[in-house]
């Protein structure tokens, strides 16, 4: 899969009467993936949107005219205007600055949860497939068990009873990841089943490679494309999950804010000041759409059997 031979467009030689010669050039896998990815317009737009949002979340404080904790004492409950692009709240805070701050927390939570849960899925799924026997049965059973439990309520219980304070959101990250890896682990397991039958895996084993090393060096890299897509789509799910919990007050706790807490606060005044709700809601939808489009684009670009159309 590493070296595709791509026939380039036949070049007409000077003189035009000479026979058409098809030159061929080797293309690395990286080039191929890049070309396939760039052809997908939705995915490229998604990537650009994510880039802009991450930039805003990181440097918004320097770029934007207002800070999230800065009151404009002349503007209370004002609709969007040139001075305040997304309007102001009852207390005179700039909605755009608040939204960008919430966006930052949502992005951090989304990426952390996605990375943790995909790592868990990769380790558990591939080791279950490779080791087999009781070990595999036990993990499959744990996966079934965790899917039976309604995760939303369990996370809410822990969030209600758990520790409060500045780092309480880290517990939320752990809980979201703990209930997010099961379906991916199943997919990883079934993919690893076919990888472990390959000769080079047997060769590595006969050379005396330890199981953890074999998993990390030889099996997991072979399902990397699935894992990359899984991280990407996981970000979207995690952000929606966090926002959903925050909507009921079981997610990020004050004084921290996320898109979810902003949406739930804004929902209280949709009739008088819809912009307070619409700004974080549209950021959330835009972000999740961008992440999903990027994930789909990556899947098409990375999947060797993909029928993404066109050449290569």
């Amino acid at each position, binding site marked *: 899969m590493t070296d595709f031979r791509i026939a380039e467009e036949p070049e007409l030689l000077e003189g035009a009467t000479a026979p058409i010669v098809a030159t061929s050039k080797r293309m690395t896998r990286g080039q191929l993936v890049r070309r396939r990815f760039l052809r997908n317009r939705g995915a490229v737009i998604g990537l650009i949107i994510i880039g802009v949002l991450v930039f805003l979340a990181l440097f918004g404080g320097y770029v934007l005219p207002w800070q999230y904790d800065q009151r404009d004492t002349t503007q209370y409950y004002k609709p969007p205007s040139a001075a305040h692009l997304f309007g102001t709240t009852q207390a005179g805070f700039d909605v755009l600055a608040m939204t960008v701050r919430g966006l930052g927390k949502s992005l951090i939570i989304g990426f952390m949860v996605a990375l943790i849960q995909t790592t868990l899925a990769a380790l558990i799924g591939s080791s279950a497939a490779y080791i087999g026997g009781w070990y595999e049965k036990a993990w499959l059973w744990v996966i079934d*068990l965790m899917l*039976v439990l309604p995760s*939303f*309520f369990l996370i809410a219980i822990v969030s*209600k009873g758990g520790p409060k304070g500045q780092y309480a959101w880290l517990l939320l990250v752990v809980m979201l990841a703990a209930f997010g890896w099961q379906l991916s682990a199943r997919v990883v397991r079934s993919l690893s089943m076919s990888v472990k039958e390959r000769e080079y895996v047997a060769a590595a084993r006969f050379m005396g490679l330890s199981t953890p090393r074999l998993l990390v060096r030889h099996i997991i890299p072979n399902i990397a494309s699935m894992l990359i897509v899984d991280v990407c789509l996981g970000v979207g799910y995690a952000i929606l999950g966090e*926002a959903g919990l925050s909507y009921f007050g079981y997610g990020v706790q004050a004084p921290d804010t996320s898109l979810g807490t902003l949406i739930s606060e804004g929902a209280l005044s949709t009739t008088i000041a819809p912009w307070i709700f619409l700004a974080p809601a549209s950021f959330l939808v835009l972000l999740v759409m961008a992440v999903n489009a990027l994930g789909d684009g990556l899947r098409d670009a990375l999947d060797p059997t993909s029928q993404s159309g066109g050449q290569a």
Partner: protein
Amino acid sequence: MARYLLLRIANYVVLLFIAVSLAWVLAQTQLHPRQLFEIRNPPIDPVSVENILRAANVSDQVPMWDRYVTWIKGIVLHWDWGSTPGGGDVGEEIGRRIWVSFRLVTAGWLLGTVIGVTLGAWTAVRQYRISDRVVTAIVLLLVATPSYVTGEISKMIATTINKGVGFQLFLFLGEKSTGTLPGYPLAELVDRVQHMVLPTLVLTLLGLAGLSRLQRGLMLDALGSDFVRTARAKGLRENKAVMKHALRTALIPTGTYFAFQAASLFVGATYTERIFSFHGMGMYGVDTISKQNINGIVAVTAFGGLCYLVGAILADIMVAFLDPRVRLS
């Protein structure tokens, strides 16, 4: 077949028992109903607080194992899921709320399924045409929009329309009006429909988004398969090849998905319930947590788990009957 199903069900029963026990441990350790009484003013006598908590089997001064045995005994011997610290019966409350959720969710679920499957199959046939691209873009937007955003926006639009027409065309507070109804015939039915339009719309959009994506992918696979090409090559009309050969195959996984979801109708749609003030199962789960009602949230978890497993069994049966490739022996 029967043996296979029985084994499956036995496995699920064990699974559910352990899952609910874990939820019970989590709720007992994380929730603190004593706090409910500590904030009362004037303060309540600690002895009577202890008695109330013991009566509900949620006192943290009783050893955990004793509480667990009492809880299990109540369920096995009397089908008693316990009571709230205030004295209300959990089983009764759930028995009532199940039907509220069912009434809320059913119409939206059916509409979402039918429209979703139709849209998915239709756009697959018209892949890469304008209509496909427009529908796919809308579906991508819907997939990324959580139901509380859809719900709030639908309420905002409905409020504008209500103002425009000058009377309350759309109602969005609960299942039905509480006051006296106007005297025209079928007033009660009309009132219920006015309340149901918006939540049904939200649930339909939610359902069709996921399902049309799934169905489009399945249908594309089926359309590209050899047996559909063979059917066309043998001279079958395109319409017939699509409907009878491709769609029929592509509907099998959707059927299992449908069966799987059927049981979850009773669990409800928490966000939609909250936005439109329905007091169904989803909101009960949220309320029990905020009111430190341990027995309540455990019962909700058990019921949710049961619905999930009933759905899984229904899906197993569907697969076994519909898909000739599944061999059970």
